[in-house]
């Protein structure tokens, strides 16, 4: 039986309801709030600032360093022990790689731009929400960027290619694949690509084409959030 009715009633290419805001953490150089469905990410950017320990410094350019973390009460099961784990380390690393291609830190040798993303509640798609939030926060911080990065998961549930899987779809009792994707807007290139599950090559290409459309929607929202802040709309710290 084909999966043609999604568990939450969405159309196959429909994203969950989204919300984005820029400039919500006054202490940070740039910050953002990004919500997709029941997944929420807060992002803060600090820097460029001097990088310690010194041996990590690059004398030719500044580096970006992402720190992804789920709050202890943000998982749908038991409390998560704070302090990071293998999963959060890996996600932080792929976030660096997803964002770095559009960031130009050549004017800031030996410096670091720290990006902290913390999630108070989650329901799948956390690394994508984290990247989308981080991109808004980086732009808000005035970091030189060639392009914006927008990220969403696509995948296949029981033979049907869908956009933005929720937790119940990731856990659906059939063959499922979950593919987090991040894309540049202007050049339409992929900067994050991971997958778990099973998928055919044909469906994978179809899913990536769907990701192109879906990240386009996220891009519009990111730009709107930034415009809202810089068009003088009241900043109420979210």
């Amino acid at each position, binding site marked *: 039986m084909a999966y043609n009715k999604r568990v939450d009633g969405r159309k196959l290419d429909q994203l969950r309801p989204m919300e984005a805001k820029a400039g919500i953490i006054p*202490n940070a150089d740039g910050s953002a709030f990004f919500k997709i469905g029941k997944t929420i990410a807060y992002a803060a950017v600090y820097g460029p600032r001097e990088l310690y320990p010194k041996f990590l410094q690059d004398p030719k350019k500044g580096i970006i360093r992402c720190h992804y973390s789920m709050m202890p*009460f943000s998982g749908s099961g*038991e*409390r998560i022990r*704070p302090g990071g784990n293998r999963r959060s380390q890996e996600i932080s690393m792929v976030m660096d790689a997803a964002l770095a291609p559009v960031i130009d830190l050549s004017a800031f040798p030996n410096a670091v731009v720290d990006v902290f*993303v*913390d999630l108070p*509640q989650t329901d799948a798609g956390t690394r994508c929400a984290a990247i989308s939030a981080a991109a808004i926060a980086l732009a808000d911080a005035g970091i030189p960027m060639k392009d914006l990065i927008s990220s969403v998961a696509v995948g296949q549930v029981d033979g049907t290619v869908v956009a933005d899987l929720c937790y119940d779809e990731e856990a659906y009792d059939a063959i499922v694949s979950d593919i987090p994707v991040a894309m540049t807007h202007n050049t339409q290139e992929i900067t994050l690509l991971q997958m778990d599950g099973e998928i055919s090559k044909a469906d994978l290409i179809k899913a990536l084409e769907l990701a192109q459309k879906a990240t386009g929607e996220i891009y519009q929202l990111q730009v709107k959030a930034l415009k809202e802040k810089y068009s003088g709309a009241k900043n109420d710290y979210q």
Partner: protein
Amino acid sequence: MIINKETIAELARQGKRLDGRALTDYRQPIKIETAISWTAEGSAKVQIGATIVMAGVKLAIEKPYNDTSDEGGIMVNAELLPLSSPEYEPGPPGRKAIEVARVTDRGIREAKALDLKKLCRIPGEKAWFVTIDIITINDAGNLFDAASLAAMAALKSAKFPIVDETTGAIDYKHKTNQSLPLLKEPLGVTVYKVNGSFFVDPSTEEEQACEARLTVTSDEKGTISALQKGGDTPLAIADIDKMLDLALEKAKFLRKELTKALKQ
């Protein structure tokens, strides 16, 4: 910062503050929002001026401690996120985070705000353990009071999850409508001393300029359940007398804000 420190001290002597507030005023806005995290059994976001903290309550069923075999338990943890201030770095909680957590913990625990006996399901075998995580989103001063307020708001809004009575498994995705057995509502107020004056709700700069601080946690009857003196200047009994009066008065103010928020 030194200029500000001296300015803050001089203004305090005259009963004034950098931002024009009275010494006994909290910053505005004060916002208390509950149920900010669907994955937590109870949660709250508190904003006092530019300071923003979250608190989340998670429940688990565990074996009671041997010496209190008919009681559940409570634990408060605080994470001063590097997201919330350029001063904080990733890593295990430092002294400041531990102090915020422990002072908040004591205020709730020692007031016996939670009826721990009612958290027991099977004596000696199974009881509810309550963990409150305090998370800073923007540290702009006065974390103690914000943490205490957020912790109480999260506890008050918490609902037990459904438990499968045959397997004993907790269904965290579905909550009952049963609240936690709360008996009291302790809230912390921290009074700061600088240059002979006392004030509440400092900004980060005022915090750095202060000589001494006293956190006083009190319940709706004015009973004190926790104290913490900080800062490297000693306090006379007469100072403490004044600080207690101010703290007890301001606890009433914060309690009104909490009641108002929980009604919405």
